[in-house]
């Protein structure tokens, strides 16, 4: 018990004694989250995306996702569409970078053509959904600057509330308010503000599961657009780690053969 108290003094004292700034505190929390999520190596999953319009109609997309953790750079990912059938086999290859624009290519199976996508096109909707490309690409620490606001309870869980500001000048957002769960160090909710700083969208993370005794992944993400009344559910199925992916599985060649 005593050692716990000492430990808590050692670990919590600097925050108060040295009075670190909210910016430093924000960065510290995000770096801790990043550290706890390091070493997952690779991941694959199937995803279902359900698009709801404000009249209650919905349409569905199905994808297969593969990603590879990179050391010293952003992650690599490959997304292949399965449904609707007319876009079946259409794939996106993304090399995310923390400090410069991501590299991205699209493969169009009907004409067997691989096309580069201009790097600013990240704020637009992903396949007509309420998710933008930038919401789905890997969340590197350097992609934002941060500011710690407060601690708050959200749905009975203890969270840090942090504001983050996109470092990327072509982002569709000026600000995001993130609730980070204190136990999992994963986001539970993100509120997005558009380029005019008006309330834009809210993203909820639901049904977290822990993989390999370390990595927390939400099985469901819900994005609500407050300006249009539309929303998109993103449901993750068959999440699997330890696939022995290598960089050779994330090339323009693998983009072509991906199904």
């Amino acid at each position, binding site marked *: 018990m005593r050692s716990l108290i000492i430990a808590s003094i050692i670990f919590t004292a600097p925050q108060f004694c040295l009075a670190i700034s909210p910016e430093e505190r924000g960065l510290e929390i995000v770096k801790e989250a990043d550290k706890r999520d390091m070493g997952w190596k690779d991941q694959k999953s199937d995803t279902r995306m359900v698009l709801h319009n404000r009249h209650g109609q919905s349409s569905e997309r199905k994808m297969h996702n593969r990603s590879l953790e990179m050391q010293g750079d952003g992650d690599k990912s490959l997304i292949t569409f399965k449904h609707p059938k007319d876009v079946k086999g259409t794939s996106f290859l993304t090399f995310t970078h923390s400090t410069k624009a991501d*590299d991205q290519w699209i493969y169009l199976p009907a004409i067997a053509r691989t096309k580069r996508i201009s790097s600013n096109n990240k704020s637009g909707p992903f396949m007509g959904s309420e998710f933008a490309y930038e919401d789905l690409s890997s969340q590197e620490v350097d992609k934002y600057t941060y500011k710690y606001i407060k601690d708050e309870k959200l749905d009975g869980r203890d969270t840090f509330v942090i504001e983050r500001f996109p470092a990327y000048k072509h982002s569709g957002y000026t600000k995001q308010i993130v609730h980070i769960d204190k136990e999992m160090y994963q986001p539970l909710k993100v509120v997005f503000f558009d380029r005019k700083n008006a309330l834009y969208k809210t993203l909820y993370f639901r049904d977290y599961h822990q993989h390999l005794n370390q990595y927390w992944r939400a099985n469901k993400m819900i994005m609500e657009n407050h300006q249009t009344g539309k929303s998109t559910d993103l449901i993750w199925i068959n999440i699997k780690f330890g696939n022995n992916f290598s960089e050779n599985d994330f090339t323009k*060649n693998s983009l072509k053969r991906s199904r």
Partner: protein
Amino acid sequence: MIARFTLLSLCFFCTPLMASEWSGNVSIEAQWFNHAPLFAGQSRNNLSLSASPEYFTSWENEKKSLTIEPFIRLDKNDSERSHFDIRELMFYSNHDSWEINAGIGKVFWGVTESQHLVDIVNQTDLIESLDAEEKLGQPMINVSFIRDWGNTDVFILPGFRTRTFPGKKGRLRTDPYISNNQEVYASSKEEKHIDYAARYNHTLDNWDIGLSYFYGTNREPEFVTGTDGKGNPVLVPFYKLLHQGGLDLQWVNEDWLWKLEAVHKRISGDSYNAYTFGFEYTLVGIAETDMDLGLISEYLYDTRGELASTLFQRDIMLGARLVFNDTQSSEILAGLILDPDSHEKLYSLEASTRLTDNWKLNVEARIFSGLLPSSNFYSLRDDDFLQVELLYYF
């Protein structure tokens, strides 16, 4: 029988981990021409059906796969446009640092939009579409080497496919029409000449670079005059051997994509160069909507000048691509190719939208304006058309 045995034995060994599926589409296409036909037997409108099923199976964790994609079209007016092709019959095997594709397949090289100079492996199925983006399946053995310093592809291409052209009763044809079964070759091996190709491509930061070489039967024929069975004059395709060196280069800089394709061609002692240079500039989220507007401009140059057998000699292409980013994935691409000297113009419009999960609608229109009697394409002067295609995907 041997093929069947091989397929069966493949299946026998891999059944437990095999994933296989059928997909594809069937379509109905209607065309309306704005002017009365110039040639006897042609029609004012046309109806056409096509089917393109695809079978895919993979095993060993997708390290090996087999793809079979036949294609068939039935055309009301033009018996030449009714045709069957095997677009793909490809065995693929992945060995991490190298891959092999063997069978019949489809390969695309290049970066530009208005024409595809570098792209040479597959023959154009021109009868399918005037934009030359539909291709016939090419027999090939292709080995890819994947290294940190780039990908290298080597191709052996046995078996030449002749370009498809509209028949006597088809619209969008030459005058006289092109015979589809009398082709002649410069090589004594004719269509059995084995062609070779290689391509190196790499991504360096914001650059995509491709260097390619091809030796074999030119995909683009020259023409000699002849007669058909009834004594009518025809143009007979004449295929020569070609050495082609190609470069494709793309530089992405924020909203800009800069593109260059250049080829050096040597055909029986004559050589010439051609290039396409241009950009695509994307305006993201125009007028506070979700729509993106891409502005495209390319310059097309061919050192043969007016002797060139293509429409594009010293021409300018201007285009606009409107992407709606809606749930129906709606898109409109409007384009214009103009010859600044002769003022000949080719307008085009392509639009597509998804109607339901399974149905898709494509609309295409082309207008030929100011074609001169000296132009290779003078015979298309009254062939302005509107085409509506309804596709069912399964």
